């Protein structure tokens, strides 16, 4: 997966070099607009770009302080387990106030939002979700002080669970 992307990225860069212009692929353009790091999964379409923009504005979305545990292969897309955990503090003056779960290639990508308070004591959320096809899944949290942290998981889906 990574090698294919870096290959494509290499081609894009080589192409840009040959043309002597700053032409970006659609993926790179959306990436640049979203505040993600270059190593993160590309933003696949305008809908995901808009969701990220609406939630986090122009704040950078960096990897870390959060884990997203999902199977690499989901046999049944109707029931895919999800575990989201973070070691960030849950104190009244600094806590994780929301965790967003975004499934890039689902019909309704912004699948769930978990609004949390310090009373929970920690961030450890488990659930089960439906998935349509092979896709990146994004878990992105927002702290009460405005920081944004993300974790990603790629899941191959054997049986479409979304119809």
């Amino acid at each position: 997966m990574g090698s294919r992307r870096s290959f494509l990225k290499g081609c894009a860069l080589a192409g840009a070099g040959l043309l002597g212009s700053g032409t970006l692929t659609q993926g790179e353009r959306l990436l640049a607009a979203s505040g993600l790091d270059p190593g993160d999964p590309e933003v696949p379409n305008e809908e995901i770009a808009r969701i990220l923009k609406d939630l986090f504005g122009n704040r950078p979305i960096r990897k870390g302080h959060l884990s997203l545990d999902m199977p690499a292969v989901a046999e049944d897309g109707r029931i895919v387990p999800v575990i989201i955990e973070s070691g960030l503090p849950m104190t009244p003056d600094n806590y994780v106030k929301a965790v967003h779960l975004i499934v890039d290639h689902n019909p309704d990508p912004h699948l769930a939002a978990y609004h949390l308070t310090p009373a929970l004591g920690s961030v450890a959320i488990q659930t089960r979700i439906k998935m349509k096809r092979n896709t990146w899944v994004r878990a992105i949290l927002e702290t009460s002080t405005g920081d944004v942290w993300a974790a990603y998981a790629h899941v191959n889906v054997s049986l479409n669970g979304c119809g």
Partner: protein
Amino acid sequence: MTIGDARIRIPDRISRGDLITVNAIVIHPMDTGFFRTAEGQPIPAYFIKDVVITYGDEQVARFEWTSGVSKDPIVSCTLTADKEAPLTMVWTDNKGGAYRQTVNIAFAAA
């Protein structure tokens, strides 16, 4: 089991200040609106869209869901058990149905 039946599971023995895990399930079809019956009739979207967790008189969490959450949704989270009080969850679906379940958080005698 009928729609709206719900269960919350917490540890048997809790001491003041424990970080406990709260497990919950509600029975609900979570229909996406994308499927049809065997007769070809569309099945309208029917899903839990909002979950509120209250501990004593404090709202400690609220979840916004879509039909992308699996049928008979389960969810678990942690809670700092710092007072003896009821823990209540209310699940609300997109047709206005609201389903409530409560467990009592009480501390084991030392």
